[in-house]
């Protein structure tokens, strides 16, 4: 896509994010953080030093992943992390990968339970 003269600055490209530490939100809800090394017109991206930040309630964990190539169709949002600000609220505690997985599983089970309970109540049609 080529733009003439003064309209060039309007082009939305990821070029200004190159070599910066970014937060990438994916369609499945995952949050990846890493340095953007490459991109293309489909928003495919190469992230170096990628880690997945898993947040469950007040607990969080950064799981290192290495070099990632992300297919653009899965990208929701690419955010530039402001290094001067805190990335997370202060009360959150960092835990190990195993513990965060346990917490994730517990949260998933709780929401599944809530779902089935709701379905049972709806069946009873109490309203």
């Amino acid at each position, binding site marked *: 896509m080529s733009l003439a003269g003064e309209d060039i600055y309007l082009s*939305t490209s990821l070029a200004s994010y190159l070599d910066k530490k970014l*937060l990438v939100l994916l369609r499945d809800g995952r949050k990846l953080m890493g340095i953007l090394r490459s991109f293309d017109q489909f928003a495919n991206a190469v992230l170096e030093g990628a880690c997945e930040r898993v947040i469950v309630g007040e607990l969080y964990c950064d799981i290192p992943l290495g070099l990632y190539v992300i297919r653009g169709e899965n990208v929701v949002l*690419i955010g530039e992390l402001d290094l001067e600000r805190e990335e997370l609220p202060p009360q959150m505690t960092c835990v190990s990968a195993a513990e965060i997985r346990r917490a994730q599983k517990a949260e998933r089970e709780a929401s599944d339970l809530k779902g089935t309970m709701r379905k049972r109540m709806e069946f009873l049609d109490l309203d």
Partner: protein
Amino acid sequence: MVLILSLSLPPFSVVYGLSVSPIALVSFAGDDEYTPCCEFRPNITSNYSSFVLAVLIIIFLQLFFSYFKDLVGREVTVELKNDLAIRGTLHSVDQYLNIKLENTRVVDQDKYPHMLSVRNCFIRGSVVRYVQLPPDGVDVDLLHDATRREARGG
């Protein structure tokens, strides 16, 4: 001011059996008049009505692109398909309606703690559900005229 865009649209060639590349749109800013002139090579079976539909869709894409370009610098709230709502200043937009926002803040910050330090972001066009605009951001009459012109065929 003349804005020249050239797009190549591979998805359309698959659907409509045409190869349409490149398409140049010449737009004269200030009048909101533009004459599309497109160059295409009919491929295997070029159906006239499919071609017309393809051109209309292409022109239509440009309408919202042009409209968002005029909104650059305004405060907007973008609601995504995953229910995340982000408020920010519209920095730029592109042909896919990807949006770049500056000075962003998430509407429900406590629900999305990971977004705390994000101040600028790039949002892929395909995940946008709504773009909430300031009420005085819409010149309804101008938009009506432009749309009527599209429907008539430019």
